[in-house]
């Protein structure tokens, strides 16, 4: 049987999606369900003086209206930060309470205050309009740069500062800077983004009055984690009385990691009103209340020698947490950001200092890449600036500072097991016809256009691990993953995984892995995920961890199956287990033609006997059945890396940036399914390019989100993007048996600096903030023209 790992297997999940048979949360209806509408704060910062629901309660079809008072009476807990971060001075981070319904104060536009349940959606909407809430409006803190000098928005949190964190050695950096020939300085923003999974968040809750079990169907990337938080911190129900199901989920990108207010409130309320509840977000609710991403202000400095060697690096960043600290909110700008800020380079000394602050804006949490895009943007922009100031080629300066020996101990935290950064950049250079750029630039200039080329080399740290280390760093849970592999007596296999697919194609790739391990046709393997009542526990999907952590748990469970199968086959074939080899689905006794298929062994394991004779195929000590599980906790992160090159052509008359060519060369170790991996890269690139050229979440001074619809927030569309030119190199990961590395976030991490470096190159080095919209580029072109005229 040919190996499926490495093959372009078409997806098992496609048929249902292509025929309209996907089952997303909002497709689910339960008999007798009520409809929920959340009443949200229209103010960014206010005290709640009074809530009057009397008129609304009398409105047609209303079942109940609940507020923060009811939440408090029932002692329902709030939302939490998943990582505890300590400041440089040793003090613990400061987090405000975040009740599921605000009781005393609201802290961002969209903060839920009350909820109406009614027989129909129209009736719920009509009643919601009748709820009267008196607010005392306070001055909002909506500007990140001014947050530390503004009035504290949460009691007891001075300067709105959650923590002031340091990683690295300030003294060493100081000494390194003293030896430098040149200090490159850069002030940049990392614009705020809204993840915008195409499926708006939703939940459908069904409380079973007989079993007293709550079932919560929801749009989650990690149903077990949601259940854990809802039970342990929300106190909604014990875990055994709480089933969380994340069926087909229409994209996540980090925004569906968090357990949200609506899921807690509706789960609790369903039990209270003894009716099923359906809530589906409108798109504007998603804009307002989904966790946002990025939003940094950074000052960076790079100490270099005149021949382009890096000596030291400083990263001073202010990160926006929004109104509350959420699950990955506090770790994203620290351990996911700080260590990666020195990039793929030998950097003798470095530090990252991050001040995370609260503002009256939606909570900010992990968004595709989570910290690593911000880090890569910082280092790759300053490296380009260094090349320019030193008069060096951007590729030359990168090559000069790459490590060439692995494992490579990266400056701040990571021990990178494998990589070949030189090979990746060389390949990208060739594929992008880097040497032909000058001619193309001339050609563009002859048409009155500006052409720029941008280069980025990146590494990513994904599949956060091992658990004891992440918990030492402040994580509230272990970041292992589990799997269970079940052979049915008649030979088909069900693989249960704690990972969750919301576009990542696990039903296909995980089945490929299991098919190879077990020698069973892929058609006979089903992958089940997303239901806390099915399979073992799971930590879910984010941070490019599914394959490198969850996939390996499947491999290990399969290996256990094979080991047990070997023992059974040996007994059936009257040989010793040492003599039995397993290959292509068959247990074969060495130097003989005696064999049993894994199907026969599975069958025998469930039916351990024969007629007229007391005889078992099971060795002593082995129990019947062929079901194994595994919890995999990797020894380290996985470290994909690569180099991307793009070219832009700018029309100085309009400021329009045309993305002309985009080349991405990535090293993901072993690739299980190239078709799917290419798709992951394409999608990642689109989001990174979106950040560079189009997307920008903007709040006005009063804290109103002025980009809260697709009319205002610029999503990249088909006609905004080019075809992508992809290439791969391969150095296998040494920390897992498949040699795989994460691939889900790479495109997003690399694309933003690649595009911005190209834009800035086209503008002859003129700095421009993210995103490089036509308006900003047009203004920059005008200024360039003016200064060129002066120089002439």
């Amino acid at each position: 049987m040919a190996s499926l790992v490495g093959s372009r297997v078409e997806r098992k999940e496609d048929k249902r999606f292509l025929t309209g048979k996907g089952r997303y949360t909002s497709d689910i209806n339960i008999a007798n369900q009520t409809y929920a509408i959340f009443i949200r704060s229209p103010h960014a910062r206010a005290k709640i003086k009074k809530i009057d629901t009397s008129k609304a309660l009398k409105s047609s079809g209303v079942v109940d209206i609940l507020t923060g008072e009811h939440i408090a009476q029932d002692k329902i807990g709030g939302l939490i930060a998943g990582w505890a971060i300590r400041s440089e001075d040793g003090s613990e981070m400061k987090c405000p309470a975040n009740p599921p319904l605000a009781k005393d104060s609201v802290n961002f536009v969209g903060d839920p205050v009350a909820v109406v349940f009614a027989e129909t959606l129209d009736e719920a909407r009509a009643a919601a309009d009748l709820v009267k809430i008196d607010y005392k409006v306070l001055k909002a803190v909506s500007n990140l740069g001014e947050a530390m000098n503004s009035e504290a928005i949460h009691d007891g949190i001075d300067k709105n500062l959650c923590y002031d964190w340091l990683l690295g050695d300030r003294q060493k950096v100081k000494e390194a800077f003293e030896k430098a020939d040149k200090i490159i300085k850069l002030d940049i923003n990392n614009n705020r983004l809204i993840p915008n999974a195409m499926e708006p968040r939703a939940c459908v809750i069904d409380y079973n009055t007989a079993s007293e079990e709550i079932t919560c169907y929801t749009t989650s990337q990690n149903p077990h984690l949601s259940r854990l938080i809802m039970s342990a911190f929300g106190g909604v129900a014990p875990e055994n009385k709480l089933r969380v199901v994340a069926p087909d989920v229409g994209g996540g990108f980090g925004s569906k990691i968090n357990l949200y207010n609506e899921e807690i409130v509706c789960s609790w309320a369903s039990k209270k009103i003894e009716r099923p509840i359906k809530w589906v977000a409108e798109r504007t609710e998603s804009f307002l209340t989904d966790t946002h991403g990025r939003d940094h202000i950074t000052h960076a400095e790079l100490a270099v020698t005149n021949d382009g060697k890096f000596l030291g690096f400083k990263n001073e960043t202010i990160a926006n947490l929004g109104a509350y600290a959420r699950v990955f909110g506090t770790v994203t700008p620290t351990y996911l950001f700080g260590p990666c800020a020195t990039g793929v380079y030998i950097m003798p000394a470095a530090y990252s200092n991050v001040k995370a602050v609260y503002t009256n804006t939606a909570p900010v949490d992990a968004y595709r890449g989570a910290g690593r895009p911000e880090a890569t943007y910082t280092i790759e922009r300053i490296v380009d600036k260094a090349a320019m100031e030193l008069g060096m080629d951007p590729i030359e300066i990168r090559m000069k500072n790459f490590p060439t020996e692995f494992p490579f101990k990266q400056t701040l935290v990571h021990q990178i097991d494998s990589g070949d950064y030189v090979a990746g950049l060389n390949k990208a250079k060739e594929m992008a016809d880097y040497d032909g750029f000058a001619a193309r630039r001339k050609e563009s200039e002859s048409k009155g256009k500006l052409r720029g080329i941008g280069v980025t080399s990146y590494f990513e740290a994904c599949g956060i691990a091992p658990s004891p280390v992440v918990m030492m760093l402040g994580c509230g849970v272990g970041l292992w993953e589990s799997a269970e592999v079940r052979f049915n007596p008649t030979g088909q296999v069900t693989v249960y995984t704690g990972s969750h697919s919301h576009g990542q194609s696990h039903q296909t790739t995980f089945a490929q892995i299991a098919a190879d391990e077990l020698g069973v046709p892929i058609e006979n393997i089903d992958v089940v995920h997303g239901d806390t009542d099915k399979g073992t526990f799971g930590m879910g999907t984010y941070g490019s961890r599914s394959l490198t952590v969850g996939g390996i748990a499947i491999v290990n469970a399969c290996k256990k199956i094979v080991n047990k199968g070997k023992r059974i086959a040996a007994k059936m074939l009257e040989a010793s287990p040492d003599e039995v080899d397993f290959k292509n689905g068959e247990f074969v006794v060495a130097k003989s033609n005696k064999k049993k298929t894994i199907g026969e062994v599975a069958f025998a394991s469930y039916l351990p006997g024969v007629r007229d004779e007391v005889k078992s195929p099971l060795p002593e000590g082995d129990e019947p059945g062929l079901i194994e599980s595994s919890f995999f906790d990797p020894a380290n992160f996985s470290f994909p890396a690569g180099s991307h090159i793009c070219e832009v052509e700018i029309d100085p008359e309009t400021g329009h940036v045309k993305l002309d060519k985009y080349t991405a060369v990535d090293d993901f170790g072993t690739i299980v399914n190239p078709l799917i991996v290419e798709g992951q890269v394409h999608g990642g690139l689109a989001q990174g390019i979106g950040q560079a050229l189009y997307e920008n979440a903007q709040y006005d001074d009063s804290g109103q989100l002025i980009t809260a619809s697709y009319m205002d927030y610029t999503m990249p569309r088909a006609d905004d993007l080019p075809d992508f030119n992809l290439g791969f190199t391969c150095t296998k990961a040494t920390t897992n048996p498949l040699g795989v590395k994460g691939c889900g976030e790479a495109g997003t991490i690399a694309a933003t600096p690649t595009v911005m470096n190209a834009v800035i190159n086209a503008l002859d080095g003129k700095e421009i903030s993210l995103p490089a919209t036509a308006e900003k580029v047009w203004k920059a072109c005008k200024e360039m023209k003016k200064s060129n005229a002066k120089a002439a």
Partner: protein
Amino acid sequence: MKKIAIEVNGKKVSKEIQDHTTLSSLLRDILNLTGTHIGCDTSQCGACVVHVDGKSIKSCTALAVDLNGSKVTTIEGLASNGKLHPMQEAFKKMHGLQCGFCTPGMVMSAVDLLKNKKNPSDQEIRDWLEGNICRCTGYHNIVAAVKEAASKM
């Protein structure tokens, strides 16, 4: 309330509906055809695209009462006799979908493009699909899928 009679995926349907019921709501909430998706409230994302009398429209901004007597085809009605439409086959072959949420609208829109233009260029495909937002694929494989389908139709 008004009574309307329409044909959905070849079946005659007669329903009493409210004046403000949109076509998407009729399909999803009343006829339980949940393949048509709602991704926004502003007629921007295109997840709700269906065919009405052979033309692609955004069903979230069409009032059902206005469509009395028309023929509607949704993603559920595209395959015939259990055989996928060439566009559906092409999306599968070229990995033109990931989470699947935008897919029904994207496929219905692309099918209409090929009715209007047999062999569209890359740019023509990208221009046509400008009203369908996909957050997963970066559109690369969607464009490839539409070209693949064009070559097979």
